[in-house]
């Protein structure tokens, strides 16, 4: 069976990335170390905040098109999804599909050297789970 190794990151949706980053720093002293504006043509901006061996990703929609905006409109601000690191993404996708979970095909992630796939929240008790394979750190 596939190995689900660790929490790679937690996505937090926000209407105001700058204010959200300010609050995470004020409350817990956590600061972003990298940001991307509309990565791979996606309709959002993202800032990454390291915490332990994982990250928080603050994501703000900047376009009314795309999957992220649709879900953001339904669910509002707050915790949005979790990302779990796997060794072998294609193997993990095949394994979960065989178990009856709804999983998307693998695609390149927004960060260099990553590939990702999405497990439907309907298969994971309401949690949107991303699987991520990192070929370089």
């Amino acid at each position: 069976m596939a190995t689900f190794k660790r929490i790679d990151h937690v996505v937090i949706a926000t209407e105001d990335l700058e204010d959200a980053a300010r609050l995470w720093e004020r409350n817990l002293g956590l600061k972003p170390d990298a940001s991307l504006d509309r990565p791979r043509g996606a309709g959002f901006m993202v800032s990454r905040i390291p915490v332990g061996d994982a990250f928080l990703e603050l994501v703000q929609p900047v376009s009314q098109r795309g999957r992220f905006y649709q879900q953001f409109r339904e669910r509002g601000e707050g915790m949005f999804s979790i990302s779990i690191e796997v060794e072998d993404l294609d193997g993990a996708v095949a394994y979960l599909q065989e178990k009856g979970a709804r999983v998307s095909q693998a695609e390149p992630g927004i960060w260099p050297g990553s590939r990702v796939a999405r497990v439907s929240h309907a298969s994971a008790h309401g949690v949107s789970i991303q699987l991520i394979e990192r070929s370089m750190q």
Partner: protein
Amino acid sequence: MIEKIHHIGIAVHDLDKALRFYRDTLGLHVHASATVEEQGVKAALLTIGQSEIELLEPLSPESPVGRFLERKGEGLHHICFQTPDVGSELEELKKKGVELVDQQPRRGLAGMICFLHPKASRGVLVELATPIE
């Protein structure tokens, strides 16, 4: 000081059904389970890397997790960060005027814990925990 993500809390209707996915399909090890009457939950803690997934089933619809399920349905409920001293962290937060749920640390599943108000983090319910050895 924040050391790491201690756990991610997930609200579910039925703990046994949720374990079929998180334990049986994902293969995560359940290292503790408990019923905590005062918090109105039945919980299971599953190890994932250096963190945990905490599955929470409400004991009644009036409990905080019960009301969350009623309002939003199953899904991500809170994120807990580990700190060496939850008491001093809480004092710092009070000085800064951060909106809190708990004014004092209390005993929780993860050790000594406190919750910040979701308003303090634009809609994210944040817990801080110092594990008890």
